[in-house]
């Protein structure tokens, strides 16, 4: 049995169509209170691009490819780690009047710029 897949032509179109529909439906009835965390969360999800970066870098055979591939992984890793960090921080803050667990501070607030 061969496990290598070929996603061309209609197979690819089916994947694109179903995934797009899925994304649309999942976000469909989200309350406004979660808009920012969700934008950040979906930003984290496209961090999967780092996997593509790894593929490109591991298969690089010239210095040009290696250089660009290195930056692909570097930026992709930044997308993943940063996206997760900020989303997790935002979501950890939601709680109801009922829950008494005090919110753990993970950082000190730096001074804000005046606007």
């Amino acid at each position, binding site marked *: 049995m061969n496990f290598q897949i070929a996603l061309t032509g209609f197979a690819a179109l089916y994947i*694109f169509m179903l995934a797009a529909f899925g994304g649309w439906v999942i*976000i469909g009835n989200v309350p*406004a209170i979660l808009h920012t965390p969700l934008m950040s969360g979906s930003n984290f999800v496209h*961090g999967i691009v780092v996997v593509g970066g790894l593929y490109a870098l591991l298969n690089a055979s010239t210095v040009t490819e290696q250089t660009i591939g290195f930056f692909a*992984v570097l930026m992709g890793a930044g997308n993943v780690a940063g996206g997760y*960090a900020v*989303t997790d*921080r935002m979501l950890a803050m939601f709680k109801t009047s009922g829950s008494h667990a005090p919110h753990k501070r993970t950082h000190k607030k730096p001074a804000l710029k005046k606007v």
Partner: protein
Amino acid sequence: MFTNLTHLITGAADLAAAFLFMYGLKRMSSPVSAPSGIRVAGFGMLVAILANFLAVFTVDPAAKPHLPVNIILAVVALLLGASVAWFKGRTVAMTEMPQMVAIYNGLGGGAAGAIAAVELYGNKTHGATQLLLALLGGLIGAVSLSGSVIAWAKLDEVLKKPLRFPGQRYLNAAVLFAALVVAGYIVFTLQQGGAALLPMATLLSIFFGLTLLVGILVTLPIGGADMPVVISIYNAATGLAVGFDGYVIQDPALMIAGMVVGAAGTLLTLLMAKAMNRSVSNVLFSNFGEISKKKRGKMKGSEKPVEASDAGIFMRYAASVIIIPGYGLAVAQAQEKLYEFVKLLQAAGVKVRFAVHPVAGRMPGQMDVLLAEAGVPYDLIFQLDDINGDFANTDVALVIGANDVVNPAARTDKSSPIYGMPILNADKAKKVYVVKRGQGKGYSGIENELFYEDNCFMVYGDAQAVLVKMIESVRGLGAAAA
């Protein structure tokens, strides 16, 4: 055999990751399950990254001699990129969240563009479809990278003024057209197999240079107030670019995750634009700031100042108070003081609620996050549609650091640039207190009629200092009674 096993493992991991991403996003769409949602998605990411390292066993024969170097490069890039971004993401202030989302999104777009570039420079695409999608992914990724960087610079106030000049739109269109022409020429040459005017690497460099320029030029004229919509557009665009890259390198996890984000980001963009009463094309192609610069008529009446302590005591004896927080509250870092004041009022039997406008803060939903950070339970926080009817039978509306979102001109003045935007009906409350640093206009530079209404009183001062005075005055009452 071994190669096949690798394909089996990465295939299964990609499948699991795709499921976990969608399930995680689904959980993220309710406040109760949201924190677990990001962890579910995070676990999916970890599975996908680890499994795809098995690609070391299936590399191209041409890349075999370079494999040790490439592995070292990959590990260094992973650790370096992840640790810097992780540290920054953990320590940045909540008010600067929009900038961070912009920059992380730009990184994703850059990565997508770079992957397309590796495939194109190495001439690794097979067939016209892969070539076209690589060029398209490269174009969208590069635009998303440079556009997000400009958006970050604007939100971080590195760039202060929108840059506008006559004929700008034609220049933007011309640069985009030039990029498309170069792309078309690349496809033509590679498909025909003929000799090109320039070496392929040069053509590709021109192509990527032009696309980066498009992102910069398109984003420069857009004002700061519209930036959230722009970031959301680039978020969706990056998703799309990742999806196309997935096709080029034949990775279903990238195809699915990219397309899910592309669609979800598009819907989120439309929701945000709707909340701001702006159409997406309006945001991208009209100059918001120019309308508001028009000379506007003199306001009737005057702004009536009042002492913070008087306002505090009045609210202590009110039956109900609705608080409307805005970005000014966050700038003064007064959310925690505000919640302290709210707890005092609650202890005195006042019904206190928060009314949050969809675009309060610099990004839809950001104010909810800032209040949550201060410890305000989210069942005290109400959205525009749920609370707007209640202002008429509320004693006090307390507006702190908000301006445009309570401007009645949005309902009445057809010439106002915010006409038609849904606003919080603070003016309908029996009494309105507005806490504001001084006389002046809001973020969009529009005069606010509310401040001149008969039932509206101004408390001038820094939000933090004002709240301290309010707290002291209410506490003073308690001490006098005891």
